[in-house]
């Protein structure tokens, strides 16, 4: 079956039609960006931290196999079972087998973008495992059967009344309850019994530390700690690029992560998992799922430096006005637009074009990924791989030819429609028409600069030189 590219523009248009949601979304995320700025101003060494973090990640990625093997050896010494998953299917199978071995039917989990990548819930649930998200935003998204729209604040596109409706449907609460406190309380009341009786817990993770064989999980709700420690079985899922060499590196990354993400100095909980609890079992699944291939892409490998803070989304004027779901992918926003095409070039071929390439994302990135330059490079790659819409490609081809021929170009500018000779008029006009949907056209002028110059400068020159200009 031929995959259709995500129609970001259309989804964005629908998002923009809903003023209350749009305004909240834009302002909430802009507020996060401003809080991030405030935190940055408090740390004179901010740019040094970014450079350090970037250098550590680049070094680690350049020596990835060695550090992963070091991690594996040390984690095993700590009594952690280490599994390797080449792709999402293998990841899901491994998790399924561990649960089956323990006869686990109820899994509570904290936020993990990797399990979204692997679409793990869809695999486990038909096999009789009930999966319960314990992060509030993630739980809202689970109940609403939607992907997270943001990697840090998964339900940021929803308003309180939306949540009230979802909870009413699932928890029998009052659909008109618009108090965030009581909604949070309903979630707590619904989640606690599930947490207390769960057979297994799962977490994602922010960092793997090679020298200690430990991993670090950062959350604000403490739900990862509950998920990891209440049941005796803890499975952690992390992408292989999460690794850093030394514990000392945490001093760089922890300082950057929450400041970049939410504009808070640190997450409420920063937990270092060092091994299974007494009488318990700890497993870690290290997931590749396209990462090794990405590491081999000369122009795009540095996207693996990402620490999933979401700062690029918060600052992105397009993301704030289109919402994460409009990207139709696990990863949305600027970082999504450069990662997603590595999963499926055709499906996500539109995403690098859902950007003005303004560069704000690159500036806020705590690990200095040149996001907007990679967007530019992706456009080239996609054009070379014939993943551009036909009309756009033809128009660019036509424009390119025209721009190389001054005489034809001049005729076109002066109003004769030579430009239209290679493409039917309706095709060109249809393509340009959207300009006028929400915008006026530029006003017509009496003369172009070109003709003004000819009249006002070349003539003078001719007269003064008495000859040809």
């Amino acid at each position: 079956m031929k995959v259709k590219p995500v129609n970001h523009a259309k989804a964005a248009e629908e998002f923009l039609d809903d003023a209350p949601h749009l305004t909240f979304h834009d302002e909430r995320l802009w507020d996060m960006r401003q809080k991030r700025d405030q935190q940055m101003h408090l740390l004179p060494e901010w740019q040094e931290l970014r450079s350090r973090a970037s250098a550590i990640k680049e070094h680690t990625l350049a020596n990835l196999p060695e550090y992963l093997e070091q991690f594996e050896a040390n984690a095993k010494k700590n009594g952690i079972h280490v599994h390797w998953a080449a792709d999402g299917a293998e990841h899901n199978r491994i998790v399924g087998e561990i649960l089956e071995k323990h006869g686990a039917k109820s899994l509570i989990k904290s936020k993990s973008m990797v399990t979204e990548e692997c679409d793990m819930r869809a695999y486990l649930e038909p096999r009789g495992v009930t999966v319960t998200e314990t992060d509030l935003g993630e739980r809202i998204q689970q109940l609403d059967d939607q992907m997270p729209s943001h990697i840090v604040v998964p339900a940021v596109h929803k308003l309180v009344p939306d949540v009230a409706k979802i909870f009413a449907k699932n928890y029998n609460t009052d659909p008109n309850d618009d108090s965030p406190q009581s909604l949070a309380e309903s979630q707590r009341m619904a989640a606690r019994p599930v947490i207390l009786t769960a057979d297994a817990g799962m977490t994602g993770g922010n960092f793997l530390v090679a020298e200690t064989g430990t991993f670090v999980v950062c959350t604000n709700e403490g739900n990862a700690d509950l998920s990891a420690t209440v049941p005796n079985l803890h499975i952690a899922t992390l992408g292989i690029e999460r690794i850093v060499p030394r514990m000392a590196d945490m001093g760089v990354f922890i300082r950057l992560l929450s400041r970049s993400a939410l504009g808070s100095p640190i997450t409420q909980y920063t937990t270092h998992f060092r091994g299974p609890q007494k009488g318990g079992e700890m497993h870690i699944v290290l997931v590749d799922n396209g990462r090794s291939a990405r590491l081999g892409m000369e122009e795009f490998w540095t996207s693996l430096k990402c620490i999933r803070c979401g700062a690029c989304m918060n600052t992105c004027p397009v993301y704030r006005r289109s919402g994460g779901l409009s990207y139709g992918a696990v990863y949305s926003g600027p970082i999504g637009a450069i990662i997603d095409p590595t999963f499926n070039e055709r499906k996500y071929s539109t995403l690098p074009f859902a950007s003005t390439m303004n560069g704000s994302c690159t500036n806020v990135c705590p690990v200095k990924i040149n996001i907007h330059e990679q967007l530019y490079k992706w456009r080239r790659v996609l054009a070379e791989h014939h993943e551009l819409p036909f009309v756009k490609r033809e128009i660019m081809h036509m424009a390119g030819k025209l721009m190389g021929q001054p005489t034809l170009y001049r005729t076109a500018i002066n109003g004769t429609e030579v430009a239209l000779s290679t493409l039917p008029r309706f095709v060109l006009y249809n393509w340009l028409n959207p300009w006028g949907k929400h915008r006026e056209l530029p006003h017509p002028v009496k003369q172009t600069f070109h003709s003004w110059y000819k009249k006002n400068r070349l003539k003078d020159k001719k007269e003064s030189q008495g000859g040809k200009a």
Partner: protein
Amino acid sequence: MKIGLFIPCYIDAFYPNAGIATLELLEKLGQDVEYPMDQTCCGQPMANSGCNSDAAAAEALFVRNFAKYDAIVMPSGSCTHHVRDNFDAIPQTEEVKHVRKNTFELVEFLHDILKVEEFPWAEFPHKVGLHNSCGTLRALRTASMSELGEPYFSKPMDLLNKVKGISFATPKRPDECCGFGGTFSVTEEAVSARMGLDKVKDHHQAGAEYIVSADTSCMMHQQGCAERGGVPIRFIHIAEILNGARS
């Protein structure tokens, strides 16, 4: 120093006054300026759309037109950014390298190369909001960027501060992109137009009578959004103010 003047296609066709002001201003400053009549485009629209090979003819023509000049000056940040940073659809000969190295956006040329101290003829008795295009701000670095927390500087403000009678409005999100983005304005028209409307409202609410910018493409888009959205604000290229326009 012999200067070649590049006037981008949209200025040529829709905003000739910005081009005329650029030329007259450079002349007032005693510069020897020529406008090669065979110029078309720098290649940016094709390259930004990913169709880099389609930019080759425009880039080759650009080099033919401008290789003989000591400096190439243009009243456009994004075109300068393209020539300086991305102009690689054609082989990088010495001529091409010369052109890329010596291409300047007008504000940086006035500020960094000519180091203009005064514009005695300039007076603009209006409150203006400065729009730094993303090309000038984040690629050409003509002003400090809010994301980096770097010490404040602004080349366009340095120049505008030399204009008599001018005052400034400060929008809430000064560095936010206005949403033009070249073909983005067409392929993502809804987001683009909304960004433009938000941008002009931000300036208007800050009390700006005019939005002034070194980039006409952004303003062409913003003007379209302001007119459709009923936001009473006017637009002027920085060259026109520096050249002595009163309104």
